[in-house]
């Protein structure tokens, strides 16, 4: 167990190191003077000199890299060219909005996927199964931004039930907040629901054919109790791992969803940063996103090893 955790943590540390190299190299590939890139086109000579000194741009590249990583470790990702706020502060103000959106989307996805997946597995090769698989395939194939546009057209423009866009902080007006979160969360959750449904179905089919399920059935336990109490608990373990791996897709989805529904979160931030050539902001957001993906999956694996006795004892997944 300890061996597994240490090895897993080491791999994550190496991955994080390589991520910083990739991001650093990426920014250096932007044509032009690096000081100009980080300070913006309208920076004066003093501003350029300040950036040059801060990142040691006259030093050899490896020294520059280490200096940059040291700053990033302290939470200093530079400052936005456009607003002059620090990148860390900008991200910190936007992140809660995206986290709320992502959490609601995950809840929507789980609420749709788990019952559908269980039903498809229990009623395998029946009409239920076929319909669930078809809906899941459509969910994977539908471009989420088009789904968002169609939802706005139907729900907001035609029916007038929900506001088409915008954001109200949860603490300011919870009802208005939820009204504006329903459609983005539904759009963001659709693809996730489709993937999770397939996983739930496959995992449940495997679990339901296990010996201990037959034992539980032969004990005379009712079908529903077997499914919920015995099968679902084990069937959900791989689903949690998939959820961790889907975090990247969720972040990509947030970029699109927030653009359509004008949600002022993390995803909209990066799109705006690209258009305004706000390189430090793009760099910071990309670095933070990739790092958090690695950390989330480390957490998922660690909690997985606590949940699953086979890993806890043997030390290997």
């Amino acid at each position: 167990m300890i061996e597994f955790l240490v090895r897993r943590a080491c791999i994550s540390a190496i991955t994080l190191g390589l991520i910083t190299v990739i991001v650093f190299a990426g920014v250096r590939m932007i044509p032009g003077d690096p000081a100009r890139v980080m300070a913006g086109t309208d920076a004066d000579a003093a501003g350029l000199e300040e950036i040059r000194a801060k990142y040691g741009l006259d030093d050899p590249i490896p020294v520059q890299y280490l200096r940059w990583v040291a700053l990033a470790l302290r939470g200093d990702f530079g400052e936005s060219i456009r607003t002059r706020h620090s990148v860390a502060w900008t991200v910190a103000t936007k992140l809660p909005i995206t986290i709320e959106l992502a959490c609601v989307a995950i809840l929507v996805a789980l609420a749709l996927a788990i019952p559908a997946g269980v039903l498809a597995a229990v009623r395998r090769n029946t009409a239920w199964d076929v319909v669930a698989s078809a809906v899941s395939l459509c969910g994977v194939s539908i471009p989420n931004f088009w789904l968002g546009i169609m939802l706005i057209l139907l729900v907001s423009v035609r029916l007038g039930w929900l506001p088409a866009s915008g954001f109200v902080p949860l603490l300011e007006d919870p009802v208005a907040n939820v009204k504006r979160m329903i459609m983005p969360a539904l759009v963001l959750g659709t693809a996730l629901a489709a993937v999770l449904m397939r996983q739930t179905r496959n995992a449940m089919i495997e679990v339901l054919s296990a010996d201990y399920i037959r034992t539980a059935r032969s004990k005379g336990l009712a079908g529903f109790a077997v499914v919920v109490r015995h099968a679902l608990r084990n069937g959900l373990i791989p689903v949690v791992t998939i959820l961790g791996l889907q975090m990247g897709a969720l972040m990509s989805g947030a970029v699109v969803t927030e653009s359509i529904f004008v949600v002022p979160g993390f995803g909209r931030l990066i799109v705006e940063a690209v258009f305004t050539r706000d390189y430090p902001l793009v760099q910071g957001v990309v670095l933070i996103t990739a790092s958090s993906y690695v950390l989330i999956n480390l957490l998922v694996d660690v909690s997985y090893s606590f949940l699953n006795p086979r890993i806890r004892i043997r030390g290997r997944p």
Partner: protein
Amino acid sequence: MSLDASRGAPVAAALVLPPAAAAPAGGLRRGWRRMLRRPASVAGVVVVLVFIALAVGAPWIALTDPLRTDWSQIRKAPTLAHPFGTDDLGRDNFSRVVWGSRISMQAGVFSILLAMAIGVPVGLAAGYHRGALDQLVMRLTDAWLAFPFLILAIGLVTIMGPSLTNATLAIGLGAAPTYIRLTRGLTLSTKEEDYVQAARALGAGDLRLMRRHVLPNIFSALLVQATVSIPTAIIGEAILSFLGLGVQPPTPSWGTMLNAAQQFLESAPWMAYWPGLAIFSLALSFNLAGDGMRDLLDPKDY
């Protein structure tokens, strides 16, 4: 190279193990029958072929110039002359959807070809040689996969500038680690097979073993993966163009069309129907075709 290799494979296998050579042909026929029993997959293949025909035959199918603006025809509802209506500059939406299939097909196919061109050789080398090279490649793919697809694409487009070529490059680079991992995994199991060991015993070198024995046998799995990743790439291009990071106006692309449509949902909803429906049906068809291909090419019975 891969086509050449797959042609050579059964012959080489027949020299070593006669029964192994007979299996693929019979399996293929069985696979066909299995696929024909799945009408959804057949429909998927047909729709993909229709879209390919649209993309190739765009100049003969869409007779109206997709770029011609007409100020007297702005945001007109569908009519016989303009079956999909007109857009905010009076351009014919039908023409633009048909021409848009070219962009989508190009982006989808070329980005996945790029991903395979990078991923297959690297994955083969890593899986075949193991050791330090394998470790390095695996850690690099871990790091590369940590960037969410769209974030990576946005980062690359920021560096390189927005255009169809750069969007295709970005999508291809984003998909490459998937192929590295898949190829590596398949190579690891394939190189332990008896026929590879037998060929090695007969004195075949590393390169020949990889090209003639490993690659042809993992090719079908790679082809299935390509079929299911093309729709992702197509949606990826549409998203980048929708965000303004891919194809630039006035070039007709489904993503840019939807971007324009978003501003006129109340007055011209038809602008939003067709490009989106095109992406959806093409992606769905590729996925259905991919499911069918898996049955067709996989020797295991599902």
